[in-house]
């Protein structure tokens, strides 16, 4: 009995290791998109003691993750942005003006179309930052993203804010 149990445990462990190994070597579209979105979040975040050069180089590295014609509408106080260069310029400015900015992503849901040419993602982007008063500021927004598969890689095409609450004092 003990031998059978040991064999079952060994087979289960090997099967799990094989499955995770296969997923790691050949990530599916959802995993690729998730990793890309996490890379963007890490790229926009900035440490408290990070140098200007470090921030800029990470912002520039984000180029490959955006469609050249990307549009971003993340809600006030951010303006609507069009084009990859505008996005990267804003990301660099944000890093420079916001101390110890940390962006995290939660509740990420990704749907890929059958032709694997486009995908949508819905997520919460949380921002934690030093607010200058000795405490940590916080903001969280729900975002809808559309992504396009170009030359074997997924890129972000649009980012739109989802308004959780309908403001009655605004049109």
């Amino acid at each position, binding site marked *: 009995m003990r031998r059978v149990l040991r064999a079952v445990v060994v087979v289960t462990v090997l099967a799990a290791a094989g499955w995770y190994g296969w997923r790691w070597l050949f990530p599916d579209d959802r995993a690729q998109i998730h990793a890309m979105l996490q890379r963007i979040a890490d790229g926009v975040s900035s440490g408290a003691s990070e140098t200007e050069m470090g921030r800029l180089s990470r912002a520039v590295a984000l180029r490959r993750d955006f469609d050249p014609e990307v549009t971003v509408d993340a809600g006030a106080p951010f303006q609507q942005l069009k084009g990859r260069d505008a996005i990267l310029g804003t990301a660099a400015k944000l890093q420079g003006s916001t101390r110890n900015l940390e962006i995290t992503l939660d509740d990420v849901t990704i749907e890929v179309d059958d032709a694997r040419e486009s995908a949508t993602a819905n*997520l919460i982007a949380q921002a934690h930052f030093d607010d200058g008063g000795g405490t940590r500021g916080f903001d969280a927004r729900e975002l809808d993203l559309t992504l396009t598969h170009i030359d074997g890689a997924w890129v972000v095409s649009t980012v739109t804010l989802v308004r959780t*609450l309908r403001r009655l004092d605004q049109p």
Partner: protein
Amino acid sequence: MALPRWFAGARPTRTAMRIAVMIVLAVIVFRYLLLPVRGVGISMEPTMVQGDLVFIDKLRYHFREPQRGDVVAVRIAGESVVLVKRVVALPGERVGFDRGVLRINGVPVDEPYVKTSSDWQLNDASLAAGEYFVVGDNRSMPMRLHEMGAADRDRLIGPKVF
């Protein structure tokens, strides 16, 4: 290798069973029954302050509709981050603020949970079917900085229980 008595007790099998039952119960409770929420921000002061831990009843709204006065969790994209606000107006009602006083269908409403005065001004606006107006209790902050508005019924996870 025998487990030490102080860890496993006199009956290790029974101890292991109890631990397993507690884990299953914790999963059931915190996945399907209660949502723990830790407060961030000042919009619900003094009812809820920064760092407060509250629990949201996830089943209640399956059996009844949200009621005026309920302190509710409002879902954003999922349940990792939620807004905690108070329901002050129900579907179909007209809601507004006049010099900081809440008005429902043109009638001023007493709000004993609001401890600060405010100068909020909001023209009366109608809520659609299935919309609930939610707002924080801290009216001392500028209205434009306060997250409030009409929430769809399906975004209301449940009321605070404790």
